[in-house]
């Protein structure tokens, strides 16, 4: 038991140092903008299709369930509000984080893990190139930028999906849908979601890169590193999400 606790604390400390050093390396010359742009493309652009698909259906189902629930008490005019606020504040950042963890995070852990077990990371190091600088820091910063952008797109497309279901399928008046949505939505709600998204991007990439970086025992180790990176990322995102939701103000409170 004691050994387990000490081991846990040890690896947690190693994780913190790993992330701290990786973040610092970004500002040390030589700067590698090319890699940063590549990662931005990988995390952001390549996730775009799946984000658009999931967001449209998430918005649609939210509007549909909202309509079923709200029409019980005759307040279906608020479907636009409920869809918009839950998307922008909560579901967009969380769902985006889950998609990015499954897509980009797993790929990062696997790639770095394979480089670790086949000595490619050692090779980088011996060539006087910091693997943290070369592999990890561009990924972390790219995700901090890319995940909020994806979240913004998720919110937009999700609301479109919600609008289509609410107005075209459930027959809510278009003017009322939009008007109620605008009445209760404030810019702070958007910032709330985007700040969370940036934190999630950081959490996902740092966990995934770390898991890959410390992988060992060949193919099996890379497999479990990939697996753990996705599981840990999603669990930590969901836990942190609650605390961030409490800490970061929302639109209604600040108005």
């Amino acid at each position: 038991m004691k050994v387990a606790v000490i081991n846990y604390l040890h690896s947690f400390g190693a994780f913190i140092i790993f992330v701290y050093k990786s973040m610092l390396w970004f500002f040390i010359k030589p700067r590698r903008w090319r890699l940063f742009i590549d990662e931005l493309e990988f995390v952001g652009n390549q996730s775009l299709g799946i984000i658009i698909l999931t967001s449209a259906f998430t918005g649609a189902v939210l509007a549909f369930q909202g309509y079923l629930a709200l029409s019980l008490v005759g307040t279906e005019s608020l479907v636009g509000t409920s869809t918009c606020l839950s998307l922008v504040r909560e579901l967009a950042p969380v769902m985006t984080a889950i998609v990015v963890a499954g897509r980009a995070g797993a790929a990062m852990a696997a790639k770095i893990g394979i480089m670790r077990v086949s000595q490619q990371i050692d090779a980088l190091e011996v060539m006087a190139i910091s693997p943290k600088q070369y592999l990890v820091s561009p990924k972390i910063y790219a995700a901090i930028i890319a995940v909020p952008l994806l979240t913004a797109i998720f919110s937009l497309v999700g609301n479109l999906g919600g609008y289509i279901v609410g107005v075209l399928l459930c027959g809510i008046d278009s003017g009322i849908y939009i008007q109620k949505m605008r009445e209760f939505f404030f810019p702070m709600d958007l910032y709330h979601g985007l700040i969370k998204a940036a934190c999630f991007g950081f959490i996902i990439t740092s966990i995934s890169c770390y898991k890959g970086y410390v992988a060992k025992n060949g193919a099996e180790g890379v497999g479990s590193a990939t697996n753990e990176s996705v599981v840990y990322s999603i669990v930590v995102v969901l836990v942190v999400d609650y605390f961030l939701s409490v800490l970061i103000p929302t639109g209604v409170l600040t108005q």
Partner: protein
Amino acid sequence: MTNKNETIIEFVDVWKKFSAFDNPTLAGISLQVKKGHVYTLLGFSGTGKSVSIKHALGLMKADSGKVIVKGKDVANLNDKELQELRKSYGMLFQDIALFDSLNVFENVAFPIREHKKKWSEEQITSRVKDLLNEVELEGIFEKMPSELSGGMRKRVGLARAMALEPEILFCDEPTTGLDPVTAQKIDDLIYRTAIKRGVTVFMISHDIRAALKISHRVAMLWKGKILFEETPEKFIISEEKVVKEFLESAGVL
């Protein structure tokens, strides 16, 4: 540059233990490698050969004792100083560790692109061509590492290790897993690209024939200690039991 007898790599009583319950992997290794020499560590598997090379590379830290390379204590350098030192290193890994995502040309060009920022594309191309010519690989620039045979990969690895004209070349079992003819070829190439140019070579191997042929000093690692260290001529007539056993198993005696 400097006189031949200068010590370039020195291990001073290096201990390393991986877990509290095991025997130490390195149990007080001390050795000295002279500049321009070829130093070979021989030993059975699991005697700490790879671990000792990792100490010299700065990939591991000793529990006690010092590893001094070019007058600097490797374990006490900060990241920047360590990088500076490593710019004079070339390393041929046991699993070669070519970058899977880059083709042969880019693999060899990689350290040059990273460290010679001022070089033009033509300079890089001609340098890489020279390096690959030297290891007798032509016309495979576009191939990916996974498309190459083991011997070819080793040669690309050697070309990459020599890309920045290192002062010290580390070789981790350069000929393991190759057929005798290819192994011979790799030894010849190491001789031609590095040893002939006066590059210090620190090699770990269990290929005793090659070691005896090209080394200045041969050392036998046994249970984490240097059991015996001599010139190849004296090594082969050693009366030490473990050394004899080793030589016999390799069919040299």
